[in-house]
């Protein structure tokens, strides 16, 4: 039996195909080139002395002995670097009234969190630099500190930023409808306060940077483990006063990033300054404890929310207060309020209702900054919404699937605008709900749950619907005055031997950017994928663009590659037409051969066109200038964001004696539009879900009352390990966006978006027979036992 031919059976049809990543072989052989591996001639090493206090005045620094140590080249304080680096402020114009204090690489007179870098030492080895740190004396004078959200909001309490009236960084208020009135008359109201702990990215490779300033050329080269090289090119240029074209940022292999490696870190800025001061390459690689105390953290929200429903279970209104504490500064250049802003705008997103009110308060405290990390705001918005929906379902006696089916925006009701102002082009909640029910074997799971309960085994089933923001337009940062690009660029060349080299601005951190770009180029041009070489991550070589953040690699980078390839193909066929005395429209390219479009008869290899164009242009008609390199940029237009959607399900077991939770199986149905490489999409989902499960069950940055991070190591801070993680079942619905030819939307954050919500609902479902509820994430055994009143 032979299946009917599909578009995938065409030669060179790579879009939609699970092909392995060409570059992965290198990584599998131990031939990765991570920044932490880099060694340059005359390279020195930096280490930082960090503040033991969460809030203190720096009275005096004595570094004489350190400087005298053999092998030490420089000891620099805040004042030394302030002479060459201009300060930065983490605010955006479109967040009206937002404030944050100016920041410098190292502080001048005050430290604002425990672990903040205070003094830098540069030496011949990292070990010597660390030895020198031991010889530095800093006199501090303790200042009153602010650790928790309530303390920070207390009137008359300590204020972190001198000159400010209070510790409020930003406030936002949305009010859409007659919320008080609807709640007063609603048949049902459910209300909950949910807290979300701080957690952090814990990329396996910590942050790493090698800055190399060459004074003779006035040229700064920075090898930087970042997702966004162009952003850093701009920042290093502006803050150190070096012309942009003389700043080169190279981001080769990156050992994980997830949003954490796109913020400005004080040490990274300092390392650039240290290299400028010394005129030599300087390397800094954070060690694990430094990562814990200085990488951005994320979440840290306390959300009070209520939902009003009518007698039949129709959602009528939501009313939300989100308090979030972000540390002592707002990060630069993306700010630390984006998460809260996204929380209040994504709450309720899957559902059809009109009346919405939300207040966001973003608060400073003496801890390291929080900022964007995978699925910014999504897990919080999703957990709050989905918990309330489940609470409403149990109040009304409805099944979790039934109440969602009744309230999600119908698949045929698009375009739609959410009560928070988001415009949805086309989502597929109904189809996803239906599919999830099938893949979970929902009815059987419920039956099994009932049976097991009789035997004292407490299983829970949770589901959670989500909406994800992808393909961001300039409405994300550009309108706020940040020099962060939403457009991407590609430069495509046909090489003399008929291969294609593609330089593209989207970057690779293992998600498979280079693979999908080569698939798109090969597919659109008509040649084998192995004949496409993709190059990313070097501002001197690749064209300017946004690179990788907010799920834009496939949707925006992919569309850029597609359009660039079509332009190159037009140019190749024009030359071919001249040589073959044909109309370009009568020709096509298949498998690297120019063919007759109608008959597919081979006419000549594209390698032959390249040979003639490059080496025998004398044989082309007079006036012909072959353009076998094209440069093309693409910026999203149409909808400001491509929203995607999906739904997750979780089956888990709670041991009511120990409070331990075992996730048995996790499920996701997801709609990211056109799928370019199903295997890579599935792996993004799995990786994302596991990060979400980590947040839901284990991960929390715990602080003492004096603002000390108490679990800054991989022995104390729990991350999901293979043994605790379940197998994950995946299904897809495909609703391509009509805004691009490619139709792809993002997928990187979908897994993380709803995992916490799912687990929260499942644990509460498991605990239902005990009348115990959990309203805080991560859900640790202690919290479970407390809810059960057994602790």
């Amino acid at each position, binding site marked *: 039996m032979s299946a009917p031919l599909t578009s995938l059976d065409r030669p060179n049809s790579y879009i939609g195909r699970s092909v392995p990543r060409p570059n992965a072989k290198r990584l599998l052989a131990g031939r990765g080139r991570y920044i932490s*591996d880099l060694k340059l001639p005359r390279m020195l090493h930096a280490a930082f002395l960090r503040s033991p206090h969460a809030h203190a005045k720096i009275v005096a620094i004595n570094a004489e002995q350190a400087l005298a140590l053999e092998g030490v080249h420089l000891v620099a304080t805040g004042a030394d670097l302030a002479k060459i680096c201009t300060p930065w402020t983490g605010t955006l114009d479109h967040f009206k009234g937002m404030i944050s204090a100016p920041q410098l690489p190292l502080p001048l007179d005050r430290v604002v969190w425990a672990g903040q870098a205070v003094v830098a030492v540069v030496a011949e080895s990292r070990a010597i630099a660390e030895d020198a740190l031991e010889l530095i004396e800093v006199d501090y004078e303790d200042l009153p500190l602010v650790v928790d959200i309530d303390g920070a909001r207390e009137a008359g309490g300590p204020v972190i930023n001198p000159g400010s009236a209070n510790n409020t960084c930003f406030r936002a208020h949305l009010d859409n409808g007659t919320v008080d009135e609807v709640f007063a008359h609603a048949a049902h109201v459910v209300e909950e306060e949910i807290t979300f702990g701080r957690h952090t990215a814990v990329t396996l490779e910590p942050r790493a940077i090698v800055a190399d300033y060459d004074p003779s050329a006035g040229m700064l080269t920075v090898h930087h483990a970042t997702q966004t090289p162009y952003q850093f090119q701009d920042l290093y240029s502006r803050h150190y006063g070096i012309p942009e074209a003389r700043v080169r940022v190279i981001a080769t292999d990156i050992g994980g990033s997830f949003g954490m490696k796109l913020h400005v870190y004080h040490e990274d800025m300092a390392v650039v300054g240290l290299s400028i001061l010394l005129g030599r390459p300087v390397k800094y690689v954070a060690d694990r404890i430094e990562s814990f105390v200085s990488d951005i953290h994320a979440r840290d929200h306390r959300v009070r929310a209520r939902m009003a429903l009518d007698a039949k279970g129709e959602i009528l209104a939501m009313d939300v207060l989100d308090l979030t504490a972000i540390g002592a500064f707002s990060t630069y250049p993306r700010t630390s309020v984006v998460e809260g802003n996204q929380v209040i705008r994504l709450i309720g997103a899957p559902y059809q209702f009109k009346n919405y009110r939300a207040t966001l308060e973003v608060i400073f405290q003496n801890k390291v900054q929080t900022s964007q990390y995978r699925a910014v705001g999504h897990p919080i918005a999703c957990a709050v919404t989905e918990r309330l929906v489940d609470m409403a379902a149990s109040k009304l006696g409805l099944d979790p699937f039934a109440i969602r089916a009744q309230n999600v925006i119908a698949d045929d009701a698009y375009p739609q605008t959410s009560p928070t102002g988001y415009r949805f082009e086309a989502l597929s909640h109904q189809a996803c709900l239906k599919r999830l029910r099938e893949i979970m074997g929902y009815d059987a799971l419920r039956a099994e749950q009932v049976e097991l309960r009789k035997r004292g085994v407490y299983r829970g089933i949770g589901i959670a619907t989500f909406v994800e923001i992808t393909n961001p337009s300039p409405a994300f940062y550009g309108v706020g005055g940040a020099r962060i690009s939403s457009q991407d660029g590609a430069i495509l060349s046909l090489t003399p031997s008929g291969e294609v080299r593609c330089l593209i601005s989207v970057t690779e951190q293992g998600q498979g950017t280079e693979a999908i770009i080569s698939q798109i180029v090969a597919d659109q041009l008509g040649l084998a994928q192995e004949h496409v070489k993709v190059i990313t991550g070097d501002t001197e070589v690749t064209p300017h663009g946004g690179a990788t953040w907010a799920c834009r690699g496939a949707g925006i980078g992919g569309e850029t590659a597609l359009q660039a390839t079509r332009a190159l193909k037009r140019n190749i066929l024009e030359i071919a037409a001249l040589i073959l005395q044909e109309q370009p429209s009568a020709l096509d390219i298949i498998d690297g051969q120019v063919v007759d479009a109608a008959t597919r008869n081979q006419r000549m290899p594209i390698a032959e066109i390249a040979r003639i164009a490059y080496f025998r242009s004398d044989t082309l008609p007079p006036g012909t200038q072959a353009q076998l390199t094209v440069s093309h940029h693409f910026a999203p237009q149409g909808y400001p964001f491509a929203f995607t959607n999906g739904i997750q399900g979780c089956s888990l077991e709670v041991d009511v004696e120990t409070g331990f939770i075992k996730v048995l199986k996790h499920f996701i149905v997801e709609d990211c539009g056109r799928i370019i490489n199903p295997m890579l999409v599935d792996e993004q*989902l799995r*990786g994302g879900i596991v990060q979400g499960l980590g947040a839901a069950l284990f991960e929390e940055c715990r602080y003492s009352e004096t603002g000390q991070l108490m679990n800054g190591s991989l022995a104390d801070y729990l991350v999901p390990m293979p*043994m605790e993680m379940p197998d994950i079942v995946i299904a897809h619905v495909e609703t391509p966006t009509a805004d691009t030819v490619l139709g792809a939307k993002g997928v990187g954050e979908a897994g993380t978006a709803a995992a916490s919500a799912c687990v929260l609902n499942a644990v509460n479902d498991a605990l239902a027979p005990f009348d115990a509820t959990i309203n805080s994430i991560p859900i640790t055994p202690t919290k479970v036992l407390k809810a059960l009143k057994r602790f």
Partner: protein
Amino acid sequence: MSGFDQTLLDDADETVRVQLTVNGRRVACEVAPRETLVDCLRNELELTGTHAGCEMGACGACLVQLDGRAVHSCLMFAVQADGATINTIEGLSETGVIADLQAEFHRRNALQCGFCTPGMLVNAHELLSQVAQPSREEIRDALSGNYCRCTGYEAIVDAIEAVAQARDQGGGTK
């Protein structure tokens, strides 16, 4: 710092000559007593395939084969390895003993950023040399000290399971 004993620093820097057989070749390096094996491999011998993720034995990124067993090169001083035979990911790749594992990891995309991958492969290699047909549970258990932030682990488990089966049917390289 008051009371700081300078001789401690001098001792810390006094190097010792150690001899190792690394990836089949005899090498000698001058190492400070405080230098860990992972630092020696990465810095002195420039074998950067071995990674450091936590430097406390929790993440598995630094696993190498030492005298035939997988060990954490972050938990060992280089001087302790004097006389040992070490295979890093580079050596295991070159000899082809893990070629089937690497191919299967590649086919199933059982890696993303690749930073955990050398440690995963060393551990998988160790597991399959001890247990020919591990169950999925046993594979997950064996990998329980290997942290990966990027994948969901499942593809890694799938790949190891598939290689175990293929080797059993005589399809492997061993």
